[in-house]
């Protein structure tokens, strides 16, 4: 009994240390992720699905981790300005049309943090400053 109390105490101290060691960036990323999920449900889920599975050949899935990594700098442009050039996702060509969603930079950052850290993706933080820089380079 005593022993287990000691172990419990030890473990909780450890987790306490672990959490306080979390960097400020990680905490901000989590906040972005949570807000990004709400934005995703509101603006994207109808086409891309609750699990990023897409909709037939009408909307591509967001589960192609390689695609999302290679095109990370373009994602803000896709969402802000829309997309109609064919895209190849999971080896399949999609010739649809995504509307321009014209979101604010902060919203773009949040929704991109959400999609690039969900559905099998794990790309970490994406800051609002980075969005502004990437938007300047839209094709």
């Amino acid at each position, binding site marked *: 009994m005593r022993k287990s109390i000691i172990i419990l105490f030890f473990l909780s101290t450890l987790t306490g240390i672990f959490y306080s060691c979390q960097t400020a960036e990680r905490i901000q990323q989590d906040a972005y992720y949570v807000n990004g999920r709400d934005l995703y449900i509101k603006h994207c889920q109808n086409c891309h699905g609750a699990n990023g599975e897409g909709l037939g*050949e009408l909307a591509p899935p967001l589960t192609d981790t390689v695609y999302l990594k290679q095109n990370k700098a373009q994602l803000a442009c896709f969402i802000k300005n829309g997309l109609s050039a064919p895209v190849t996702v999971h080896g399949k060509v999609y010739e649809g*049309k995504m509307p321009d969603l014209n979101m604010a930079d902060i919203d773009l950052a949040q929704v991109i943090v959400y999609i690039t850290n969900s559905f099998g993706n794990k790309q970490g933080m994406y800051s609002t400053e980075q969005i502004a820089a990437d938007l300047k380079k839209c094709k």
Partner: protein
Amino acid sequence: MKHLYSAACALLVSSALFLTSCKEDKKLPVYGLRETKTIKNADGSAGVDTIYQTIPAFKLLNQDSVYITNDQFKGKIYIADFFFTSCTSICPIMHRNLKTIYDKFQDNPDVLFLSHTIDFKYDTPSVLKKYAKKLGVDGPKWQFVYGPKDTIYTLAEKSYLVAVMQDSTNRDGYVHQGFLVLIDKDKKIRGAYDGTNPEQVAQLMKDIPILLAEDHKADKK
């Protein structure tokens, strides 16, 4: 005491039986306008008959550019809705949900699907065909139809009781309700479910077998 106990048991069992038997006889309501008509019974006395609203005759071009009419749905139940292919708001959700129902009843020839486009400018049969293929439902079971504005809008509002309209203030140019309307073998409206609401879609999924069973019973009579 013991008697009381067994009596309570019996009551419980019989009420359970009663409840389940009630469930089997469950019938879906009939929606829409109705009127009564005085009729002459076989024995010459006067009686009253109820006439329910039904879907009127129609003739519309489908995704294969072939005219279809009510005959396509003769003796079948079907689910009808109104949408347009470039819709970026509720249509993808409606058709994502309707597709799961389609998949579930894929092998049942008595369940059909009918989607009307309200975009009479752009959604020609070839556009509808492309859309159907991309949704993954290429075949006669799910018809996508195109028609003149008046025809489609009147069908929607007067017959299927779904509000649709052109709206230049909306970014897509059209607004409409996302109802999935369940029609029986006699062309009567038996349900309207919000195709964007998961619970109502689940209810539709449950109501289809009830309607099918009802029709089978009527056949035997």
